């Protein structure tokens, strides 16, 4: 298994870490979400094939800042995560407010509902 560069950070560090990567010339590649005793967010960045992932583990009720003030185009990823997983993301530059996808079930990927 090849090396994977995954750095764990807390949810309140996301803006500072993202600014630091942006100023170092990294592009945002993706934001992914997984259910892992709450939500596990992975922010992936690349610069000349150097692939870095910032990992945040948080509970369903934690609110996290949007990074659209740094990478504007993150709005698509953040809207997707908010709608599918029910992550609480504050201040998304273009917030579709649960209207990006036409879903018959609210936050279908959220495991909390199944646990309840």
């Amino acid at each position, binding site marked *: 298994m090849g090396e994977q560069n995954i750095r764990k950070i807390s949810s309140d560090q996301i803006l500072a870490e993202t600014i630091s990567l942006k100023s170092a010339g990294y592009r945002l*590649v993706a934001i992914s979400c997984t259910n892992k005793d709450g939500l596990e967010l992975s922010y992936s960045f690349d610069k000349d*094939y150097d692939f870095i992932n910032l990992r945040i583990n948080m509970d369903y009720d934690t609110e996290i800042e949007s990074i659209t003030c740094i990478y504007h185009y993150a709005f698509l990823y953040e809207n997707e995560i908010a709608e599918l997983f029910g992550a609480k993301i504050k201040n998304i530059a273009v917030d579709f407010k649960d209207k990006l996808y036409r879903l018959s079930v609210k936050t279908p990927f959220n495991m909390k509902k199944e646990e309840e």
Partner: protein
Amino acid sequence: MGERTVIPFGPHHPVLPEPIHLDLVLEDEKVIEAIPQIGYVHRGLEKLVEKRDFKQYTYIAERICGICSFMHGMGYCMSVESIMGLEVPERGQFLRTIWAELSRIHSHLLWLGLTADAFGFESLFMHSWRLREKVLDLFEETTGGRVIFSVCDVGGVRKDIDAETLKKMVDVLTGMDKEIRELTQVFLNDATVKSRTVGVGVLSKEKAQELGAVGPMARASGINTDMRTQGYAAYKHLKFEPIVATQGDSYARMDVRINEIFQAIDLIRQCVELIPEGEVITKFKGNPDGEYFTRLEQPRGEVIYYVKGNGTSFLDRVRVRTPTFANLPALLETLKNCDLADVPILILTIDPCISCTER
């Protein structure tokens, strides 16, 4: 200031085989801003990981897209193999590369046809798709399928290609090379095609970088990035350089894709020369336990497969970040200040795949 109007574009439009909606804010005939709306056909394929075990999921991954189907299966399998520490036999790696590059040829020919159709050049559209048929015939002969192949599997590939068929494949591609050169001369030199593409929808290198563009969209703006250079599958044995252009306009995006067709033909020729004898798949036991991000270069650009296993046969998560998803912000940028008449061409020059976006 002219009169401002908002007009809806899509979700169904003659140039789009799949639904996407754009609110175009116009000032007279100029587009000032475009606001996207996706989500008409979200298929929840990532969620299906809870209902299908990790071996069955290979077939679901392939169905994310009917054009990059092989590479979707391959990206998923590469992630699982990395988690499990599986070594794919060298012959399997070369066969994967051959099918991946055939996919690139057929994807780019399909795109050329759709683009010709968008500016009303019907004969060019039909000739592009006539040539594409020959690639589909090669797929059918080697895998049994024309769109979905079910030939990629965790550990390698499920079918071998004999030496005679490989030689025939090279002969077919050599014949196609000549025909594609004649066809693409029209795309590159015809005055009417140039009038619709040169200087239209310029995306600067800085903007492409800032907006996270990938694949031909990024390379046409001068960004030298191509995941194949990282040497996955058999690419580490092959000689090639990413195709890059600098103008950043619709013509440059077309030029890059055309040259990538010839590059793909050359890569297949190299594979047929270098392919070793041996097994094509590794047998294994057990289940994936761990996580892995795999990145590979599809015809539309970099795709990311993230797989997380927990030691059981059911995975915790599969996440796919497709190239169209990454290129949507760059599309919105190219639409700014364009003429309304150029909107269909510009949407096509990112080679959008909405079914990938709404996996």
